């Protein structure tokens, strides 16, 4: 009798538990799991959005993809973008966090303003910067440069400068986030260790490279990976500021996916591109989990 009621209780718990999580899990299935499985299925189909065709064609999309000069171009551009964004972001945010971490006057104010672009939409941020970077003497940036005798380029329409512009735009947009993360890490540094180094007469330079940086390294690693993943996914900045140009010099992977799927309607090919992006993000996420494991190892 008792055992029966225990069993009934278990069953009741199971039903209630699942009733609570079912809405979320059902949404997960339809908006994450099935789409992910589908993108793998589409990637081995000849699938056209306009004609509504879907025919299995094996690895043809991937063969085309690796033979496609635009794909390698988009991959290289994405890597250039990351190679610009990640170091700039990390160096500036780390330096700012260390400099501001001392609780000086105005720290709150600075934290407040460098976080403004983080909450602003990428669209608004890109629109405003598109104006600021107007070429000739029309744009404010070039006007300021002309004050010091520099003739600014036509930022968004010259190869090289266009990539530099989107990189700087992106760094400024997300800098505040990493500054705040690093400030948290700086505050958590064991004060006695730094104090001891001070007493031993460590110079600022040594203190930073021998004591502070190693202490901050786990956070730096994690922020680096999150920033890399973020820059792999860049889209709105590119779409709105340069539209992939000039001459495809800022065409990145997500832009190419969008272009192939929704402008060329080649959704099969675009799905193969999306699979490649997924695998890149997957590897980076695995790295992130691995580095987080090491962080908790340090802590315990």
């Amino acid at each position, binding site marked *: 009798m008792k055992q029966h009621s225990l069993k009934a209780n278990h069953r009741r718990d199971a039903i209630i538990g699942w009733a*609570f*999580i079912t809405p979320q899990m059902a949404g997960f299935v339809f908006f994450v799991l099935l789409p992910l499985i589908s993108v793998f299925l589409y990637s081995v189909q000849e699938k056209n959005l306009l004609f509504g065709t879907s025919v299995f064609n094996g690895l043809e999309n991937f063969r085309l993809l690796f033979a496609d000069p635009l794909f390698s171009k988009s991959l290289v551009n994405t890597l250039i973008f990351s190679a610009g964004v990640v170091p700039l972001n990390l160096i500036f945010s780390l330096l700012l966090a260390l400099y501001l971490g001392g609780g000086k006057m105005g720290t709150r104010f600075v934290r407040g303003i*460098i976080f403004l672009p983080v909450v602003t939409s990428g669209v608004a941020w890109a629109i405003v910067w598109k104006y600021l970077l107007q070429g000739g003497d029309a744009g404010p940036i070039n006007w300021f440069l002309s004050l010091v005798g520099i003739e600014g380029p036509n930022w968004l329409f010259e190869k090289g400068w266009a990539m530099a512009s989107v990189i700087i735009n992106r760094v400024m947009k997300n800098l505040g986030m990493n500054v705040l993360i690093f400030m*948290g890490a700086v505050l958590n540094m064991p004060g006695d260790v730094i104090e001891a180094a001070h007493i031993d007469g460590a110079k600022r330079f040594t203190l930073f490279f021998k004591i502070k940086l190693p202490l901050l390294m786990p956070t730096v690693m994690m922020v680096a990976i999150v920033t890399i993943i973020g820059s792999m996914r860049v889209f709105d900045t590119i779409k709105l500021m340069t539209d992939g140009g000039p001459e495809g010099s800022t065409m990145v992977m997500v832009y190419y996916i969008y272009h192939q799927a929704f402008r060329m309607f080649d959704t099969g090919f675009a799905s193969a591109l999306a699979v490649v992006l997924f695998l890149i993000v997957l590897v980076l996420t695995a790295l992130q989990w691995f580095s987080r494991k090491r962080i908790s190892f340090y802590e315990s």
Partner: protein
Amino acid sequence: MNRKYLKQAPYALLVVLLTILFVYPFWWMVVNSLNSSAEIFGVPKLLPTSWAFSNYHDIFTVQPFARHYLNTLAVAFVGTAGNVLLAALAGYAFARMRFPLRNAAFLLLLTALMMPIEVTIIPLFFQMQRWGALDTLVPLMLLPIFGSQGAFSTFMLRQFYVTVPNELEEAARIDGLNPLGIFLKIMLPIAVPVLSSVAILAFIAVWNTYLEPLVFISSLENFTLPLSLTNFNDTYGLPQWHLQLAATTLSILPIMVVYLLFQQKVSDAMVNTGLK
């Protein structure tokens, strides 16, 4: 005394430099949203030249900007409310209930945290087509409830509910409350600080979403603000700069207000997302 000030000088310089870098773009935007198209470029102005408040009237006449604003509000409110409610339900169950496959389901859900929407956008497009939900606000409302934003909120709420002492639930059970009653009358109210954090984050994320409306929406009357902002062109397809800037200013206003009111809460919550 003098030396003390001298030591402060580089710091003061840095503060001034950062202020210019990060505030000037916003300042420039507001100033020129009150200028005529011709006054925008050339020598940068610190204050509007013509104080053209009519720009803020005209943005509503050249395209259905009010409609776009309402669309965005609707999407953001429904998306945020759904996100928070379902995340609280699931987060509470994952933290405090015992049921089969609980941990497996939770781990599976966490994979959504790393899923870039850019990867799944093509299948989502076809799915919305099958459901007849293309060119409606429905996908824009549903996606933030689930996807990575939903998984993140669920994760945050689970972390919170794990720390709640058992006595609360036991007392409620003795008082004769059923599980739904316990959730609604006790567990939701005590989670308000966490709920508001995840709500603010979800709201900002939905408000700023660009790729999803770009892919799912095609008719002008269903635009949300990010699409609307990029659509200020005259009949010849030339951009109407002054109007675009006025519309952009209005579009970021709610987020700025939320941010300025709850600065600490917003930045703390976002930093948590960065650390997830």
